[in-house]
């Protein structure tokens, strides 16, 4: 049976205003709402598609911070077979080195054939975790992928990438491999809330302690701050004629009209 691992992460929800901590070296995580990383949502969908097509087993792995349980109930409702939480006793997400360290220790114990995760996340200050994980495991990596298929045969899988200018690429990769997903082959499926609520009653999570360890980076964050506004949009006011005249003046002034 094929073993698929999908990694999901919570990231700051940009629906809310971000708040920087008083030390100006990080976000104020106690005031930061978190949401599922968008490309991880797509990675989960791609993992579900592979599982359904190849009758595989899907294990969803996440670090235990924020309201990750809600995301994991959703994953269970969608069809995840096994859910593992990596203990993480901090309000802020692990950095990408810490994440990769823990995943690098966990994944070999799961006999995984395929690891999928979002190819990027807002919290990856120290490089992209998916590529680093592949390096740590010594597995091949393909990133910014928009679909995975077992068409190549002989243990080779086909992955699809999209480049700027509507250029599509098909690549072959031998499993086991780590795939960084940008978008899934189809939009992440909607699962009714009643199923999520049912999963919250029945789903069992395995929590693994001691897997995550602090890892220092050679890169230091010197300062985190909100982008200062250096200019702003000018709202043209007045009657339609006045606004139209001002628009024409502006276009002439900028050399668009003569």
């Amino acid at each position, binding site marked *: 049976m094929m073993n698929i691992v999908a990694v999901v992460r919570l990231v700051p929800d940009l629906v809310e205003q971000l708040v920087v901590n008083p030390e100006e070296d990080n976000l104020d995580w106690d005031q930061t709402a978190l949401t599922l990383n968008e490309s991880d949502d797509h990675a989960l969908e791609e993992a579900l598609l592979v599982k359904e097509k190849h009758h595989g087993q899907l294990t969803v792995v996440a670090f235990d911070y924020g309201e990750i349980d809600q995301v994991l109930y959703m994953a269970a409702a969608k069809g995840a077979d096994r859910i593992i939480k990596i203990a993480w006793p901090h309000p802020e997400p692990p950095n990408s080195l810490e994440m990769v360290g823990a995943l690098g220790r966990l994944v070999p114990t799961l006999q995984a054939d395929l690891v999928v995760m979002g190819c990027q996340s807002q919290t990856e200050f120290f490089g992209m975790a998916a590529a680093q994980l592949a390096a740590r495991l010594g597995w091949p990596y393909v990133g910014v992928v928009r679909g995975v298929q077992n068409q190549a045969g002989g243990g080779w899988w086909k992955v699809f990438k999209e480049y700027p200018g509507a250029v599509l690429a098909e690549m072959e990769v031998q499993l086991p491999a780590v795939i960084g997903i940008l978008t899934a082959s189809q939009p992440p499926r909607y699962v*009714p809330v009643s199923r999520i609520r049912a999963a919250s009653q029945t789903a069992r999570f395995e929590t693994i302690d001691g897997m995550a360890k602090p890892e220092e980076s050679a890169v230091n964050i010197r300062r985190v701050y909100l982008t200062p506004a250096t200019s702003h949009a000018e709202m043209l006011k007045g009657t339609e004629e006045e606004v139209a005249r001002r628009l024409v003046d502006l276009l002439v002034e900028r050399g668009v009209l003569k």
Partner: protein
Amino acid sequence: MSGNASSSLSGTRVAKFYEMLFSPLEGSTAWACMQCGLCSSSCPLGDAMEYPPRRIIAEAWNGSLERVIRSPSVWMCVGCYTCSYRCPRQLDLTDTVWPAVRDYALQEGIQPPAELRTAFQNLYLYGNVFGYSPRKRLEWTKNLEVAVRDLSKIPERVEVLWLVGCYPSYHPRNQVVARAMARILTALGVRWGILGKEERALGDCDRLFGEEGLFEMLVENNRRLFERFEFEKIVLLDPHAFRALEKFYPRFGAVLPAEHYTTFLASRLDQIRPWLKNPIQARVTYHDNCCVGRRCRCFEPPRQLLQAIPGIELVEMRRNREHALCCGGGGGGMWLDAFITEHGGRRLSDVRIQHALETGADILAVSCPFELSRFEDAAKVAGAEDRIKVRDILELLAESMGLGEGGG
């Protein structure tokens, strides 16, 4: 796309479908359907539906639901209650057939149209269909010159708990209406309060769209929220929310005194009349929203409010009161314009604006937050935005009372 459910699970879902379909809400059950087809021919989108209500019931009898749930028809009902109103057997088709078949489709893994999926997810995550921060619920009160009692900050007993609603809280055009309501309530001396950033959608549209679990979640959250506050009655701007509170919340033990603002204000007309000093010289036609109108048979209070305004000449569209054509925004239709136009060939708001234009009215008056944007857009599509203005009754009242934006 079909789900990966086992057959036994699927069997449970079918059983739930039959329970929802054949359990009477009001009146008879769907077993009493005599297949007359009046529902299908009355439905404003029935001609475009492969499976209108009559056929869904027939297919349910035959146990052949698989094709039904894969048909676009499942997502085309806009919750106008015309089928329920006209059914000679008084079957509550809108509130039974559609939620049942949609719930079954969702449970079987059928994916709703993308726009609807987004609306559901936003409701689940943020408690509003827009996906905006709950902290921004009070933005409509910026620069409002009357005091706003935010009960989420200072819980105190109020006469009216005003549930502002998602559109009036967040949608710029509807924020004007919310401010008009705040000024009118204050002018009338009503002790009113709102829930501020704690308010969440009441959830009628997702119930109609078969998202029973989401609806239940919202009901549970709202019930717990309401229990924290003391109030005499709840007043709402959104007729769909009013309908949910009136009819479906009691099933979850939340029996709450609720009124739509049109009936609340009409009952205070004697108090309002002395304020109505500024004439509005205009020919006005009123669009009955489906929930307060056809569903709750409440047709006169909105008209009484309009007729009380000096200068207004009220004229009726050829389809009015219980026969009014829906704007197409109910039951989730608000987020399905592209889907319904693709499969139904038209937007009902584009048809309805023609009815309003036929009357020669200067103003199309409405009393539902969905309708302002729907009809303003329809007027633009018709190239008639200079001929007819769309205004909520609250805006007209506020203007006549000298309480409009900028004191007008």
